């Protein structure tokens, strides 16, 4: 039994799950700020990203040291490589939360639209669920749960398309159009968070099976989905 290697792997996994919790808090904060048009809360979300980045860097450096000193192979190597990817996906998700917070500040004086807010709330809750499912699947090495992320993602994608249609229906008023464009970016950020959760699921499948395969292939619609 390689005690040091196992301890380091365990500690990296724990750090990554904590990073996941930070991303969930960031996403919840961004959604609340958006709903309440709360610029102060949006600022907190932006500042909070430093926490995620610190965790991200610590994991990245931990992986580097582990590779250099422990030369993991087989399932250990796959775990380290999967963590390297998952770490990046989580950090990107947090960046999208920052973008949502920045856009919230830009539109804070605009009247919020209940329909739009509801769509974002729905997308955001889905996103939160997907992050939890992705991390649970990672902890349990559960490929089936990981591949269920594709269906959850489809729901976010649909909501995203609804937002786009809604914005197109706003008409030619330039002020409204500007607001609408910003809302499309918010929607796109939430949609991308879902995509990153699916990517984490793909890493879980790689970790378990040893073969990397995209659950869905963007260039060949849904053909390769499980």
């Amino acid at each position: 039994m390689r005690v040091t290697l196992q301890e380091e792997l365990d500690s990296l996994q724990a750090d990554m799950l904590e990073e996941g919790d930070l991303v969930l808090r960031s996403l919840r904060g961004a959604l609340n700020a958006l709903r309440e048009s709360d610029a102060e809360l949006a600022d907190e979300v932006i500042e909070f990203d430093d926490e995620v980045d610190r965790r991200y860097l610590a994991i990245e450096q931990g992986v580097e040291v582990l590779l250099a000193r422990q030369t993991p192979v087989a399932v250990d190597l796959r775990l380290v490589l999967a963590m390297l990817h998952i770490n990046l996906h989580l950090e990107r998700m947090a960046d999208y939360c920052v973008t949502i917070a920045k856009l919230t500040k830009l539109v804070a004086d605009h009247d919020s639209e209940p329909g739009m807010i509801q769509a974002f709330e729905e997308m955001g809750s889905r996103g939160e669920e997907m992050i939890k499912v992705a991390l649970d699947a990672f902890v349990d090495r559960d490929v089936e749960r990981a591949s269920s992320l594709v269906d959850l993602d489809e729901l976010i994608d649909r909501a995203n398309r609804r937002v786009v249609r809604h914005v197109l229906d706003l008409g030619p008023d330039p002020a409204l159009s500007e607001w609408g464009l910003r809302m499309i970016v918010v929607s796109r950020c939430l949609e991308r968070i879902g995509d990153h959760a699916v990517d984490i699921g793909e890493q879980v499948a790689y970790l378990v099976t040893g073969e990397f395969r995209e659950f869905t292939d963007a260039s060949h619609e849904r053909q390769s989905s499980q």
Partner: protein
Amino acid sequence: MPTDTMTTVMPIEIAQRSERTRLPTKLEPVFEISALSVSYGSTPAIREVTFDIGRNMVTAIIGPSGCGKSTFIRVLNRMNDLVPSARVSGKVLYHGEDLYRPRVDPVQVRRRIGMVFQKPNPFPKSIFDNVAWGLRVLGMKDDLKGRVERALEQAALWDDVKDRLKKSALGLSGGQQQRLCIARALAVEPDVLLMDEPASALDPIATSRIEDLMHELKQNYTIVVVTHNMQQAARVADMTAFFGIEVLPDKSRTGVLVEYDETQKIFTQPSDERTEGYVTGRFG
């Protein structure tokens, strides 16, 4: 539990046989080993080993102490003949010919299938005489100088020793002595080079020279290397065979082939959990 032990023993044989069909198509067998078992007196050393060793490849044999790695490669050039109590059963085909047929001359076998040992073992003679020794014994005396020079060149030792060929081989460093032993094996123009822990007594720089050498030599030779150093297997071998230890119902321990596959597969995605346990350092 005897019955449990038997059930864990049985599937290996089945797995082994199916392995053969999964090997890379480019593998052109030099050795075809079938149901090979070796025992020393009543003590079994390896049991029912079946796999092919490919030409111009480095094949690594890895596994815990006592798994029969060294016994296995000694079978390949009939070195076990020198151990009176050794009993070999099963088949070892070398280029399609049964190595253990009565009329096969073990001396000729060892000429074609050379061996390099863990500890460099030069004779207390000059560098030149060490390499020329096998040539003289086998009557390969034409162009003796040329043959010695070529062997030393192939072993990446020529530049180190060309000005002191008459000096004692014992004055060389450990790494140089090991390359001298490789030159000695190569001088008689073998086809296969068996290496039993060839770098385990060497420092990292000398080790890396031996590993580079294996990489070069496989263009012209087939190399089978036993190593305790898994990273060495990962670095140098094309194919890797993992030998494990099975405990039989009568409590006797014997070496078995657990998994044989491309090295890359063994070190990224082994098929057998015992291989996984060994290469990740969790057992053995």
